[in-house]
């Protein structure tokens, strides 16, 4: 029986998440450690405003995603896996959609679960913590797609780190702004529904469109 593109992509990405545990643990460690170091450097006398700690946690989450994005794409291109995939007339777009969704569920999910740890360290109000978790979980899908896109188009370069951040950081501003905005709206008792809707819309748009860009970019880089 010949597996469909979706089944095969799913099977491969699940295997890769299991075997590449080092790569996403790397991102999670970065997230936690920098948060703790920041807390240490701050000392005890000073208290962070909730705005500052929310944006700090969000930026750390984004940076940890950027840190691991390279590992999603580069081995596939250097090992010529896309050759086998395209050579059998399979759709690279499907592979990219599945890759992003799996990475989001695992990576974004774990980042969101770790948020309380950092939030309590930085003294964020308890009632805001679930909202910060939600905003990071929802927003990280868009961040992953943008970072994945950056990883694809920089995969051919040897010094891809610099290029990746230049390409990816501006793209990530919308999810960042609305992700932080959602929690701040909660803190200040604004109406949060429109912000939540926009955040979800950005993520849905990203997962709908970016995989096309990624598969197109991967074809070019692969040649």
């Amino acid at each position, binding site marked *: 029986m010949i597996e469909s593109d979706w089944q095969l992509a799913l*099977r*491969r990405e699940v295997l*890769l998440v299991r*075997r590449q545990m080092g790569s996403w643990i790397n991102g999670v460690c970065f997230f936690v450690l920098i948060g703790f170091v920041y807390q240490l450097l701050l000392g005890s006398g000073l208290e962070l405003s909730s705005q500052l700690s929310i944006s700090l946690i969000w930026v750390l989450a984004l940076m940890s995603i950027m840190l691991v994005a390279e590992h999603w794409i580069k*081995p596939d291109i250097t090992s010529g*896996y896309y050759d*086998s995939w*395209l050579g059998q007339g399979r759709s690279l777009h499907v592979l990219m959609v599945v890759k992003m969704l799996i990475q989001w569920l695992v990576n974004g999910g774990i980042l969101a679960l770790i948020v309380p740890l950092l939030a309590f360290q930085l003294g964020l109000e308890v009632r805001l913590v679930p909202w910060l978790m939600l905003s990071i979980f929802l927003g990280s899908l868009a961040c992953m797609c943008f970072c994945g896109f950056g990883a694809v188009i920089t995969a051919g370069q040897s010094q891809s780190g610099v290029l990746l951040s230049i390409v990816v950081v501006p793209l990530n501003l919308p999810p960042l702004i609305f992700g932080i905005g959602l929690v701040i709206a909660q803190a200040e008792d604004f109406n949060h529904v429109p912000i939540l809707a926009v955040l979800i819309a950005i993520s849905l748009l990203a997962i709908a469109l970016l995989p096309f860009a990624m598969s197109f970019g991967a074809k070019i880089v*692969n*040649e």
Partner: protein
Amino acid sequence: MLVLQKYFVLREEKPLFQPLDCHFKAGDLWLLQGDNGQGKTTLLRSVQGIYQEFSGTYTWNDSIKPIFIGHANGVHPALTVLENAQIICATLGLSTSQAALLQCMDILSIGLYDQTPANRLSAGQYRKVGLIPLVHPEARGRPWLIDEPFNALDINTCHFIEQLCLAHLKRQQLILMTSHQTVLSPELMALAQYIRLVSPISPTDTSCDSNNKLTVNEHNLI
């Protein structure tokens, strides 16, 4: 099986070799020859539909997708040998029952390493993981496009791959192969036909030669 007409591939909008007119028939073994960067790998990738920048036409008479074995052939360094075998064979549309794959790995003498991540293997073993589809029973009915199969392999495995190719030819299947290795087994040499890719700025012509020697300026077989 496969017909090329006025066929050449382009890289950065420049042709890589002089146009080819060739007819590859079932049961043929064709060796692509040419200097480094002359387009051997690119030619294989483009008739497989991976590389799109070419001029002229290629026509497969059959709807069966050939099996393309590239340099690294999609072996992911983090996956174990067995997982790699499963993914690679599934991608090529071959069955992935564990028993069959373990048998393939035993044949290539990497069966002991089924749970070892590929990045812990030696270069030759790593290459063998990529060659697993060639020993897969279901690969017997499809044309093979193989890029540098002998790289990094020990001499026994090279002989074994040659035997595999011979058996494949006896089943009336097409093999297209690039190889820098000049010494093949006599049986295989007797069957091999050559295509020499020549740079477009070179005065000599690209030749398809069905005789067992290299000639230039002697054109097309069709």
